């Protein structure tokens, strides 16, 4: 790729006050301790009322908030934005796309606004695509990732009868959106996207995660909406993460010692700890968010970037790794502040 794209600024949106394990434990009738020990996620945010299930913040609300904050932080006007890329697994409606709804909220017009259907890899995939649009001549664009849980978690569900593997979903995920402004010139945060890795690797493998949806034909289906093969995930993700690390380092001709920061995959507080240990880059400072935000899917890498950028010094290097276990997608980013 000829032209470098730069991260000019980030924005994030986490709805409402953080929901801690005690509150969640009470609502679900499970012990707070169990959440602490097995998941290791301390808080998360929900855009819906934990008691009534009423939706207070749609995905478009969150993505517009994050996007607007990113544009503002970059010191740009909405008219400067030349594309909108939104990654999500949980759009508000199939059509119009949440990407176009967000463009509307932000007062954007006459520009490409489209959506990537993805999961934990979505943010990197959108940045990858954004980078090509910058290389194609765009001066600035907006990349957004976000997910909401209200369709997949049921506040009225009798949790006493929910099997444990499904109960985990309630404590693992959270709502949120993150955004980044990509620019052709280094402005504001001036972080160059030096390398992007984006690989589908699930040929012949059963999915590690399924996020389902029902329509008219199958609305009475009893099949679960959200399924994770935790065994497969626990087994595969650390190895995949390590492969991503080394592939990116090789591609960029960097060594682990060159890294000031490491943004590891954000599955849950516990899993992230384990993976980071396995990655074994002690010289790089870990930047994680999952313990506070829960697993926010497409927002994760962008929320990590929002935490990274204020601390990244000029010349500082960071590497982000995200694994999507649905169909085993390996993604990563190599960043350098100029």
């Amino acid at each position, binding site marked *: 790729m000829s032209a470098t794209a730069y991260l000019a600024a980030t924005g994030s949106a986490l709805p409402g006050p953080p929901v801690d394990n005690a509150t969640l434990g009470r609502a679900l009738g499970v012990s707070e301790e169990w959440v602490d020990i097995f998941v290791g996620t301390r808080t998360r945010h929900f855009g819906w009322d934990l008691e009534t299930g009423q939706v207070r913040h749609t995905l478009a609300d969150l993505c517009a908030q994050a996007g607007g904050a990113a544009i503002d932080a970059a010191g740009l006007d909405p008219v400067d934005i030349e594309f909108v890329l939104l990654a999500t697994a949980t759009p508000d409606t199939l059509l119009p796309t949440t990407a176009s709804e967000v463009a509307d*909220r932000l007062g954007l017009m006459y520009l490409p606004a489209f959506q990537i259907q993805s999961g934990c890899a979505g943010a990197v995939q959108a940045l990858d695509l954004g980078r090509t649009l910058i290389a194609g001549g765009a001066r600035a664009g907006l990349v957004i990732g976000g997910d909401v849980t209200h369709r997949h978690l049921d506040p009225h569900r009798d949790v006493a009868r929910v099997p444990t593997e499904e109960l985990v979903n309630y404590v693992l995920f959270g709502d949120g959106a993150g955004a980044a402004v990509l620019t052709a010139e280094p*402005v504001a945060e001036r972080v160059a996207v030096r390398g992007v890795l984006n690989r589908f690797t699930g040929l012949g493998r059963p999915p590690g995660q399924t996020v389902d949806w029902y329509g008219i034909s199958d609305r009475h289906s009893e099949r679960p909406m959200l399924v994770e093969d935790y065994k497969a995930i626990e087994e595969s993700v650390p190895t995949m993460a390590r492969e991503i690390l080394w592939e990116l380092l090789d591609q960029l001709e960097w060594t682990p010692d060159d890294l000031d920061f490491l943004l590891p995959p954000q599955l849950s507080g516990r899993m992230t700890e384990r993976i980071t240990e396995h990655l074994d880059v002690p010289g790089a400072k870990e930047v994680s968010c999952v313990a506070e935000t829960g697993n926010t899917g497409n927002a994760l890498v962008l929320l990590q970037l929002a935490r990274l950028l204020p601390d990244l010094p000029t010349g500082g290097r960071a590497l982000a790794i995200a694994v999507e276990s649905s169909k085993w997608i390996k993604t990563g980013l190599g960043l350098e502040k100029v």
Partner: protein
Amino acid sequence: MAYGDGVAIVGIDCAFPLARDTDAYWELLLRGGDAIGDVPTERWDPAAFPAADGAARAGLARGGFLDGADVFDNDFFSVPPREAAAMDPQQRLLLHSAWRAVEDSGVAPGSLAGSGTGVYVGVMGGEWGRLHLGDYDRVTPQLGAGSSAGMTANRISYQLGFTGPSMAVDTACSSSLVAVHLGVGALLSGECDTVLAGGVNLVMSPALGLVYHQLGLAAADGRCKPFSALADGIGRSEGVGLVVLRRLSDAVADGQRIYAVIRGTAVNQDGRSNGITAPNRWSQEQVVATACKRAGVEPREVTFVEAHGTGTALGDTIECAALGSLHGEGRAEPCAIGSVKGNLGHTEGAAGIAGLIKVALALHHRIVPASRFADRENPQLRLAQRGLRLLKSPLRLPPGPVVAGLSSFGMGGTNAHAVLGSAPRPAPRTTAKRARPGAGVFTLTADTPGALIRNLTEQADAVARRPRTAAAALCRQSNRVKTGLPYRFAVTARDTEELAGALREAAAGGLPEQVAHRPWSRPSVAFLFTGQGAQYAGMTAGLYRESAAYRQHLDAADAALLPYVDTSVRDLLLAGDERGVAGDLTQPALFAVAYALAATLTAFGIRPAAVLGHSVGEFAAAVTAGVLTLDEAAHLVAARGRLMHGLPEGGAMLSVQAGPDALRQLLAEEPQAHIAALNGPRDTVLSGTAEALARIAETLEEAQVRARDLQAPAAFHSPLVRPVLDRLRSAAGSTEPRTPEIPVFSTRYGRLLADTERMDADYWAAQAESPVLFADALADLETVCAPTHLVEIGPRPQLLPLAGRAGLATSVEFLHPAPGPEAGGSELAELVAQLYRTGLDPDWERLYDPEVTAGSGEKLRGYSFSTAHRYWTAPPAPRTEQVPAARPAATPPRPTSPLAEPAEPATTDPVSRDRDPVLAAVIDAVAEVGSYPLEQVVHSARFYEDLGFDSVMIMQLKDRIEARLPHLGEVSVQQLLPALRSVGTLAQFLGGHLTEGVRA
């Protein structure tokens, strides 16, 4: 003329058919909307103008008609109904628009009163006058003023108090662009610093339509189809539009939002050309070339031109030929052209401003809307060969500077052209914005409680449509724009979601009276500085993080203390470190917080009418009053803290819920116990040895009197501090106390510090030993200053509860800027909001983070005027008698009732009228002169401010009063004038005059 950097368009307001405001206009343009409709029945009956074949004549049945052209919020502008009804509706529309345009420029319209702001209004013809002044029996002074074209501009100047040039401009269809040209000239020559320019057009009669028809220029379907093969002439249309113009350098300096920059304008004439109404190619070419030259722009650099484009065969051909010969030369991409007339029709006197606003919005949004009817481009125009391209779809403008052109031509041969450029962009940021703006105060004002609710609803909807962001920038803009009207609303908000909710709640719930505050005077605020005991680790750390002003002042206090305490009190406070508020740092820490809070409030414009400090609180009070410098006080407090901390152990303090009389006997028995503070009738603090106080506490407990050990490190305010007083006195020896600039109520003396008394070394030594006479000082403060608000200056409420038990007047309100450990920017902002509601006009800019105030201002919805009154087709009391229309059967837009003989006074008399026949006569006469409904003419209604009386109306009023009160005898206008304050004062004067007459 030297254009320099050019003239910035900083405010816009407009209304066009099917587009009630600027946003709706832009939306109409972007979707290629069609604003043409049938002629409203109240204008004229198109069937009355049959063509030869019996069908309605071309162009008389359809056109662009403004919704609500008859609406006027006369009460807002204090215009009496009679006068409103006599005013050309074009004047009324302009008044609404002028107010909103100034608001859009980020300025409260009231704040421009008295400025030399110029007003230039393009207006064509005088249909209103022709329709009304021909009936000589009905001519009134109001109708005379109401029908003059010059008054369109003059009314704006009068109502908004502008003293700069003010004129109507009539050059036929180029009027409003010529008006802009004149306004630009006034700015560039230095005649004005702000200019309001634009135009207005209402189609009140079919007359001009008939003229177009006879000239063969009227489009059959009432639509202009610019540059289209279907073009068959003009469709008439209506509109009003104004822009606020500033020299670019002024606009940038004042942080105004800039839509676009006018870089060059030119006006010329066809001269003796091919007929007075025919366009002239060479003159058009010339005016465009001159404007480009003045702008320093080559025509080939112009990306798009908003053409005059009336959609007449000859006009389109000549315009394209002229444009092509200039803009088509030497360029790779053809020059894009289009005309808004395809959407709106020809808005005549407002055509130039319709185009100007379209171009400004296109440069602002960086999209040029498509030109309607462009898909059937007229091949005879040979646009491609001429280097021109008709915009068949919207054009997204490239990043970077863009130049556009705008033409407007008049039927009599006066041509105008303007060259506009995109607004300058600030240099790209080299760092990201990281500040987390804290809370802001959203303000809104209106002329009545009902109007406030109406505007709250509109603002709530507008805010709710925005993506969620911090609210500070929006709040700050509301402070700049939405202040100045009598009824005030203010709410504290951190983000737009919270703000939208608060606005909606205020608009929906409760009575208007609970939302709308109408202060009649400014609040009088006294500062009470908290003493020792209120301190806690981490006090005001939240406020420090969220308020830039507080940060600045706490930093200053910290820097002042640093040389004397050898540690950063601020850093310890921010770290939540206990050491920061313990031992010899207790008093310096309290002082730092109190100083910073007081300095913050003072910087916001909350200047105390009096200060009172409790014990150690007197030091920050003395700095606030100008008695001590910050450095002197820092030195003194540090020394005092150290000395007091160094007192021998064994001293203690006891707070007792009893008055001194109840304690006298106990104290007489305990020579080692003393009164340390008299805080209220049942709030006393004792000081002494721990043993003596323990014995007293025991006795009190038996007597069931509540007492509490204050955990004080020593027996302050008692003879037990004597060992250190000499050293305290010598530490204070170097200070040079000044005379207070603000009254100081001394808790040493328990009263106002007298002129001869100085807060010198002896004062501070004695102050440390003698009891704190808080209750007496507070009582004297209330008597002398009668404050409306007591603000406690400290890290949590300590004195306010005491004041609450002290039996002050119930009207005194208590406020605290930092009411506890959780307090942050919101609490501070809420204090400002509360004082604003009661009449304070704070220095709002200081409330916000510099990142927020450095911005160019968020866009806020313009004022929503009342639509309750319509003066044209639906006057307040419709006259039953219809003037039989002569041929043609047009129904002239006739302001009926208020211009005609006044209706009989309504029979619903207020009670007071029965009791006072003079008052009743005055009320009737006033209602009649102004055509006011009787219920609006209340006793307290003021003649000038509320009823909009002028000299003409006063003469009329005198006649009517004399007719109603025949016994009154001779009253001259000179006698009457001083009494003309309100309806009540006039009645009182006349009553007195009548009595005198009887006596004589």
